[in-house]
């Protein structure tokens, strides 16, 4: 199985309530809360696609899109 690579963080700003759980739980400090108190990926290049933010988001507002080595979206 090839390693998954981040393609994008889809963050639903309408659903995000800005609790900061994703920011605190990200092991690589990828996410921050922006000026509107909404989650934002400020350092996507550091993302290891562990999906911790996606699974821990109480607002179901984050989706981590990955692709495999051949660029196929997952």
């Amino acid at each position, binding site marked *: 199985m090839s390693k998954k690579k981040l393609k994008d963080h889809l963050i639903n700003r309408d659903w995000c309530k800005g609790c900061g759980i994703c920011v*605190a739980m990200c092991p690589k400090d990828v996410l921050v809360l922006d000026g509107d108190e909404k989650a934002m990926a400020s350092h996507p290049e550091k993302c290891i696609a562990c999906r911790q933010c996606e*699974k*821990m988001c109480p*607002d179901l507002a984050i989706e981590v899109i990955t692709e495999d080595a051949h660029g196929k979206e997952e």
Partner: protein
Amino acid sequence: MAVKEYIRERFFPHMWCPGCGHGIVLNGLVRAVEELAINKNELVIVSGIGCSSRISGYVDFHSLHTVHGRALAFATGVKLSKPKLNVIVPMGDGDALSIGGNHFIHAARRNINITALVMNNRTYGMTGGQYSPMSGVGVKATTAPYSTIDNAFDCVELARAAGASFVARTTVYHVNQLSELIKKAIVHDGFSVVEIFSQCPTYFGRKNKQGGAVDMLKIFKEKTVLIGSDKKKDNPALMERGIFVEKELPEYCKAYDEVIARARKA
């Protein structure tokens, strides 16, 4: 991830407070159902009253939002009437173990194939942060300004003693274990209970100076260990997570089929 196939998007953003652990339970539940690839038409979610119980409106299953404490009794009717349906019952700690305590132990006793998720945030959130049967001694609540003197239940031991054939516990911090345990509970053929520690930063956290949602999640991380961990020996106060009971026992609806067979022979 096709999470959105299993939720009713038009009701989002949901009504829970920022940082509420119940959203993480919803997240884990939807993930578990998706991974099991259950036909949505064969899924019924039955809930009672309270913050936790609003979960039923957000999932695209057959949903039955009932009265306080009685969700398992409604669910028993659904399941026995149509046993091929998967029945999941999310409940708050007050819903499941206070007003609904009797239904909880009797559903366990019958070992009817229903999945009970006890979303334990140790408070009555919907009514404004009163103490619950799971608050425990020494807790501040809007009905315990001088702090509580009531002991808490051990939900796992209660379910075990009452006869549940699958009993597990985890927290919303341990999200991978959360969806794994929900999956196992749904697949299990009998009454299954998953107690899930969930944070209420708005009332319990604030009243008891536990900080915000993130701080409360860290408490779940620090105060719990996997079953069998050596850490528990050094620190008996740690709460164990994992599967406490998993056994095969006659399931109620299947046993009832035998009653029908006996009646027809007689």
